[in-house]
């Protein structure tokens, strides 16, 4: 009886497994599509809490693309950590579950999937140029509503805020115009206030 059963199940099994991983050790080979996600993690502001979060990502092999942290509620001793990461939907849900599991965690929010989530980043962009490049850089900065926070006859430092994609775009445009250095804060996020 057992034998019949095996024969009955194995063809289906083979077809289902043709492209799938052979064991738990090969799970990284899954072909799900990776996407970016921003997690806002509200944690107790206590020594070592950032290390816990970063250590969790390192130990489980998750990426950190950007990370910001600061105390946001002095009275309740809570800090807000905003992490931008990448992963398949399965990995992202594990990241969320593992973050929630930490004793120091109060709340975890996937800002990317939250329609009320707002993401912003600030960047300082240094360019060195002259002549028409200099005029072009200033013109583009005006279009992007970047502020000039320092200027010399041979260059600018711009301050720009916006969604990470906007900053990427601006930095890309500055590249041929004498881009020297970029400093970015990493992504900050917040939830829109309820309407009414």
């Amino acid at each position, binding site marked *: 009886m057992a034998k019949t059963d095996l024969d009955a199940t194995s063809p289906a099994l083979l077809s289902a497994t043709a492209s799938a991983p052979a064991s738990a050790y090969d799970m990284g080979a899954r072909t799900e599509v990776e996407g970016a996600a921003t997690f806002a993690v509200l944690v107790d502001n206590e020594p070592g809490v950032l290390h816990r979060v970063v250590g969790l990502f390192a130990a489980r092999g998750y990426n950190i693309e950007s990370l910001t942290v600061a105390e946001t509620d002095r009275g309740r001793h809570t800090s807000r950590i905003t992490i931008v990461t990448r992963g398949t939907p399965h990995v992202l849900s*594990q990241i969320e579950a593992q973050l929630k599991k930490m*004793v120091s965690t109060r709340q975890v929010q996937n800002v990317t999937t939250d329609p009320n989530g707002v993401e912003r980043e600030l960047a300082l962009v240094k360019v060195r140029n002259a002549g028409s490049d200099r005029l072009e850089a200033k013109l583009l900065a005006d279009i992007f509503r970047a502020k000039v926070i320092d200027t010399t006859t041979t260059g600018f430092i711009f301050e720009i805020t916006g969604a990470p994609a906007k900053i990427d775009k601006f930095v890309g445009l500055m590249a041929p115009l004498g881009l020297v250095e970029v400093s970015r804060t990493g992504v900050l996020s917040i939830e829109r206030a309820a309407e009414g």
Partner: protein
Amino acid sequence: MNAPAPSLTAARSAAADGRPRLSGAQIVVQALVDQGVTDLFGYPGGAVLPIYDALFHEPRLRHVLVRHEQGAAHAAEGYARSTGRPGVVLVTSGPGATNTVTGIVDALMDSIPLVVITGQVPTHLIGSDAFQECDTVGITRPCTKHNFLVKSADDLAAVLHEAFRIATSGRPGPVVVDIPKDVQFATGVYVGPSEARALHAYAPQTTPDAAAAAEAAQMIAAARRPLFYTGGGVINSGPGASAALRRLAARTGAPVTSTLMGLGAFPADDPAWLGMVGMHGAYEANHAMHDCDVMIAVGARFDDRVTGRLDAFSPGSKKIHIDIDPASINKLVKADIGLVGDARECLEALDAALDALPRHARAHSAERLAPWWAEIAAWRARRGFAYRPSAKLIKPQWAIERLYALTRDRDAYITTEVGQHQMWAAQFYRFQEPNRWMTSGGLGTMGYGLPAAVGVQTAHPAALVIDIAGDASVLMTLQEMSTALQHDLPIKVFILNNEWMGMVRQWQQLLHGERYSHSYSASLPDFVKLAEAYGALGLRAERPEELDDAIRAMIATPRPVILDCRVEPTENCLPMIPSGKAHNEMILADDAERLGDVIDDAGRRLV
């Protein structure tokens, strides 16, 4: 070391609100007593001397002095697993703390509640590379459920109570509390467990969602090939969970299998018991896992030793996953229904949800499950644990069978080391009750069993506590024999001595062309003389006819015993799901001749 030692005779000045002020060391002792701790395992040193001084005056706490701090952690694990209460460890800074790390990781992997108190250099020396300083909270951060560095004696009581709350609630685990020496000397306000404020918002969900339970009940009631797959979570939840599992299995008529960690939650003598699942599990259990239509996973985490090849894991089943850790659900295997909560509460919720179904839906129909049981009977008839008996050599499987036969009427607790002997113990020792089986599952720590037995015997002085050991594993923590002697803990160390690191040898035979690289236990000590050197009784059994008498002598001896049981050196642990294979591709002892061909190149690369 010139600072004045605190003691209970020190003046207890009262704070403004009338609460007593105690030294940090006294706060530690008082908190342990108030948490109901009666036993702790430790080793003194410079940075915990104030706490040891306070212990000197505290008759309600029994301190078991180990011979190595790793032993303290494993002993506390054994204590916790056999009682359901947290195990407590007290060690000094630096090497004291680092030596506990293996035991702490072991407890984390197997979800065992431990509170590990470590001494630390005084706060003003932290970061100065002081003598016996190490970054204990940094080292233990990734291997604890949570940890604390206490910088003020006023925080100490609240932190200790919080440590117990975290260690024992939700998914249990180890918590480290690192206490600098000056904090142990300083005075602070003591608060009891009931008045201590919670320091974290941490509040794990224990009660399952009723709607999900109702949905799960419907799925179970409609199943034709149901199976309970239970794990350590059932043991951790307490005896009530085992009772609920037994009731639910009886009313649904479903068979039960379990992980290594879950043995004993369901009685091995029950006809519905299929034996352990997994790499070295029962043939019938693995086939039932593969072919079931509804799998009810309770407090089990789909470990790779259980699932084998993941994409071929139980391909046709709907899965109900009960776990107190939401992160376990959908981690490796997608659950059709996830029930987050305590195992007992979830099982009782399922029971109640089955009651609520319409009569025709919940009637337990033996008829409906009859074909399923007929299939199981066929798998059982394959006798997957069969081995070739020998009249000349002691077969390790037979040794465990005899050990069970001669101890089954006793109040026996079994611990193990890690390797072949561990798997044979899991296969052939038949556990009827929870909390009787202590083994290192997740981490697989050789050297776990002997100190764990010390911990179990501390909790159960009158019980028969046996460490089923291997000749290689037992040498890793053998010095704890001295602990057993000192504290009158009559543990029995039953060594299946095959003169090999047996599991390593087996894998080298199967996967590495019989190149036995460094796996032979050369220069083994004479275990009988070694036992005598410790003051224990040493026994040896070399031939099958000597075994029963040796086991009887071991049981009858009211002090520690090492029984050196010489077994067939090259016996392999079978059946086995080779790496990279599915549950229904087990190899059995009678086709062991072709072992080398069964595992392909991909499998060879797996652990």
